[in-house]
């Protein structure tokens, strides 16, 4: 673990804007170095104030420090940024159990289960919801030290890309400019790198669920029907977001040399590949 902390600290020193602070903060928290973890989380939040995972990390550290009021605020903020953030939902459930509000705790766990139906930690906490607060607190407690591995896994900031090569096999930019997410913003396949070659997959994934939710709401409330795509020109590159199925989002990113029309065609092809892959997954 000490080696982990050393290696992660060194990575963060080399690239202070990277998301390595999430892993470093978590590693320090697990070692019980709460003040150091706190500093890492605060610095990370200053650089990434709109990243739900950063608020989640900060909240876990605050909960460890028994500062439950601020932990509540941070998990609440994480949920505003990413409404289906499993870590934040579990964290709030834990806090509600703490104050004896089993109904609210169960409601948050149900939302967490909807977002992560395969999370055994959530299922366990929910099953215990009517059985007694002590066990439930432990199952939902994102700050618990010696939890089963499954609960720890459920707190990971984002799932690792699954068989990414297969999703977009044969498509241009499959490893650096195509990203497939589920409805909660978790990565299903593909990867993104910025112009400096840094992996930005998790950071972008964290924001995209909010973009798609807002795009759907905007189209609906303005009477435009269902949205089919969102294309944007940036100063350094272009992006195209589409929804290949009801529960998935696809982002295509290319540099400015690729015209927007061509980007739309690439996005259509990638969406077709993603749909096939999603159907195969059943």
């Amino acid at each position, binding site marked *: 673990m000490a080696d982990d902390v050393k290696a992660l600290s060194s990575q963060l020193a080399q690239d202070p804007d990277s998301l390595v602070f999430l892993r470093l903060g978590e590693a320090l928290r697990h070692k019980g170095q709460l003040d150091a973890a706190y500093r890492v989380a605060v610095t990370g939040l200053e650089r990434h104030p709109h990243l739900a995972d950063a608020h989640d990390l900060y909240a876990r550290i605050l909960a460890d420090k028994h500062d439950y009021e601020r932990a509540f605020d941070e998990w609440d903020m994480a949920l505003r940024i990413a409404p289906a953030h499993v870590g934040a939902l579990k964290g709030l459930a834990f806090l509600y159990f703490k104050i004896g509000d089993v109904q609210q705790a169960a409601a948050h766990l149900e939302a967490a289960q909807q977002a992560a139906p395969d999370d055994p930690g959530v299922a366990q906490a929910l099953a215990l919801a009517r059985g007694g607060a002590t066990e439930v607190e432990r199952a939902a407690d994102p700050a618990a030290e010696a939890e089963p591995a499954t609960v720890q896994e459920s707190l990971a900031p984002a799932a690792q890309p699954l068989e990414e090569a297969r999703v977009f096999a044969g498509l241009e930019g499959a490893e650096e400019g195509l990203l497939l997410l589920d409805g909660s913003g978790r990565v299903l396949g593909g990867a993104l790198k910025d112009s*400096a070659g840094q992996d*930005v997959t998790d950071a972008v994934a964290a*924001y995209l669920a909010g973009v798609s939710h807002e795009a759907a709401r905007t189209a609906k409330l*303005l009477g435009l029907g269902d949205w089919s795509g969102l294309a944007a020109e940036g100063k350094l590159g272009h992006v195209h977001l589409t929804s290949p199925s009801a529960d998935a989002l696809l982002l295509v990113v290319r540099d400015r040399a690729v015209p927007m029309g061509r980007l739309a065609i690439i996005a259509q092809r990638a969406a077709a590949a993603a749909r096939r892959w999603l159907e195969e997954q059943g």
Partner: protein
Amino acid sequence: MTAESPGGGYGRALDLITRVRGVRGAMLVSADDGIVVAEQLMEGIKGPALAALAASLTTRLRRAMEAAGVGVSLFWHLQAEQGALLVVPAVSGILVVAVAEPDVNVGLVRLELLRGAEAVA
């Protein structure tokens, strides 16, 4: 088309956008507040809703684009079954917004939105 414009310059910028065939309305929006600065909209389009939602989507999209390393947004286009929303953020903190038919000439609207953004900058 109803018009509500505090100044001639803003009005002219919106005129050029709404002249494009298929454009149902155009407006200037305060990006931070999501409130209407000036508008020229066909009957039935809710200006305050358009302003609030366009600003909110711009903010969320900007964060995702910054995270992706493609820099600030210069133009975005939401395509939907029954229409489209097209937005250019101007440097002055104003959004130049058009709402249009789904089959509108996007290139032409984009050009007029960029001109509008220059006019209000």
